[in-house]
């Protein structure tokens, strides 16, 4: 994985420890995940160990260490979604795409994440594909929605 984007990205920061999370977020915004090559470069920049970076990055659920799919599917498993069948929906996505949460499909089309709450509780259950939120979801609407994304 090339790290060409990093010098420019890091130039916006002062090199203080408190900037670690914003930097990781910026890297993930740029290329979709946190590759080893990036961690190797960030550590000397912030004068902290790679271990410390992995310690922080793995603590927070937002960061991923493998390349994402072209489209991100987030199935909401907040309480309101749970009582309205969110879990069944999550399993249906897994079955349909043959991937477990945290994985990407072989063709790189989708990746799947379970999230705690998207904050659209009154319209539960919901799933999010990229920036689109689908409310009052059902297992049978899944197929047609996934078909919209290439």
């Amino acid at each position, binding site marked *: 994985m090339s790290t060409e984007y990093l010098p420019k990205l890091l130039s916006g920061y002062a090199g203080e420890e408190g900037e670690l999370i914003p930097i990781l*977020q910026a890297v993930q915004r740029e290329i979709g995940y946190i590759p080893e090559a990036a961690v190797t470069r960030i550590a000397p920049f912030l004068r902290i160990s790679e271990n410390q970076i992995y310690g922080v990055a793995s603590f927070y659920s*937002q960061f991923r260490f493998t390349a994402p799919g072209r489209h991100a599917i987030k199935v909401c498993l907040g309480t309101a979604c749970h009582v309205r069948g969110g879990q069944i929906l999550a399993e249906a996505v897994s079955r349909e795409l043959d991937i477990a949460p945290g994985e990407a499909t072989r063709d790189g089309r989708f990746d799947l994440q379970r999230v705690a709450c998207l*904050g659209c509780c009154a319209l539960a259950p919901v799933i999010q594909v990229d920036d689109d939120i689908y*409310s009052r979801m059902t297992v049978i609407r899944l197929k047609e929605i996934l078909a919209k994304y290439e």
Partner: protein
Amino acid sequence: MNSFDNLRQQAHRKWEHLAARSNPVIYIGAASCGRAAGAMDVLAAVQETLKENSLTAEIVQVGCIGPCYLEPLMDIALPGKPRVSYANVSPDKARIILKAYLLRGDPLPKTAVGFIGDHDGETFEGISRFFDLPMLKPQVRIVLRNCGFIDPEDIDQYLAKDGYVGLQNAFRKGPEGVIAEVKEAGLRGRGGAGFPTFKKWEICRKAPGDAKYMICNADEGDPGAFMNRSLIEGDPHAVLEGMLIAAYAIGATHGYVYIRAEYPLAIVRLRKALAQMRDYGLLGRNILGCGFDFDITIKEGAGAFVCGEETALIASIEGKRGMPRSRPPFPAIAGLHGQPTIINNVETLGTLPNIMRNGAAWYQQYGTPGSRGTKTFSLVGKVRRAGLIEVPLGMTLRQIIFDIGGGTRKPFKAVQTGGPSGGCLSSEFLDLAVDYESLTAAGSIMGSGGLIIMDEDTCVVDVARYFLDFTQKESCGKCTPCRVGSRHMVEILESITRGEGQPEDLIKLQVLGETVKRGSLCGLGQTAPNPVLTTLRYFRPEYLMHVTDKHCPAAVCRELIEYRVVVGKCTGCQRCVSVCPTGAITGPRSEPHNLNPDKCIKCRACYEICRFDAIAGDAIIIRSRGRIVDEQPER
């Protein structure tokens, strides 16, 4: 005349211009929830229809008024006429309404859901008042006063609604005066614990330090709660004005908004609001010429529930793993970078401008002596009218769930207050007043304001398992009782929902729960067992049914239920056959189908598609295996 008065006059002129406009104004509720319901498609249809018919109108994207069950909402105000609201608007419905009202002057009274009028009982063209709807009438909107009424991306509209007047009053009263006013108002922290706001401030103000920090906690982590998101999306300046007032009171020079990355629209609106404040001299050096310097940075959370806890949140801003530390010292004395720090919740801050604008005496008229003012709640789950509400503290659960929420379709079973840290209360608590003390006495907590309503189709054992599974995964791992104890509790609950529970498991759960509560450092561990302990207390028979009869009365727990075809109802339409992923359902067309329980994976697809079929209706049912009597002839 100072420059702030100039700004306000300018804003008022702009607002009056908007009110006296010669073009119609179309308001579209475009907060996250409105968008999820399809508001952006409605917006596109509106723009198209205007263009096709050569009509001119001003389109304003507003925040959430609250009744999410009516989303997407569209309002139209013709010049000199009040705003008329239309609910559940689809792109097609939007076209019909626009053509009727804008071209023919017919507001379609039967289609409209209400109009925005000032007086009770008033009507307009046969349309009744929006705020006379049963969901809205019992509410008191103080924090949410602007949500859905102003364009959240336009600071002038906030100023025209007396925005930043509270700040101006604060400057007049001086820091001690502000603390005294908030003390008299009786405001308690809205993040969950209900600690008196003024007390925290007083400690921080007196604490010595090189710098002081003001942090807005917008890490709304409770699953099932979205009050803070709606407020920031609908009225960001109210929260930011509150931050300025709090920072001025404690003597802070820098502030942070710590907000969940899952709320992208709220973050965008905050950024725009901060830029506008800077332009208007409301942020930076010498704010409003009063010698007060303050700036605000946005910090995006990275997904960790425990960061809602003050000391964990501070660790996260410092770039560390978000793990809580022991208190004292409290953050008010030694917080961010070791300096005195105040962390207030979004809603607490959103309340402050109102208190400073209207005075403590005005605020005191709402609520109870121990719990003053109003509280926002996200009313969700199996309730008919779901949405965001704001009510005076002290209102009963019955009033909230039935008068405002319209009750449940199937019989009411329980309400969960306070999210994963709260408790599950049964119907005998419906007349409980919602205030800090009463909820704690019942074994629950106020929490940040999530109200999850459950009906008889919700299994409380499954809900307890769900919450504990959530907190167990979010436990930072520092304290052994929380890390290991919660894990063990989840395993016991899982075995109960699988029908493998033993009677002594209930005692184990009780003992473990009490140990985790006592042996944990932070609020996460101290409250995590609440959903289990309250359900054990109020719904013990349901646990016993799972344990002894292997029966899930709500027909939820997968290992204890089965899907059946009701022969008398099945028309043999084959739609279920086509959606079944495992080929468990077979049968020729026009004859009742067969469902092979050995192949069935209980994915719900057949049940859903059958429900949508108007002819057959509920020909596929889900029932508990433990149920002895069959209601319908089945195959």
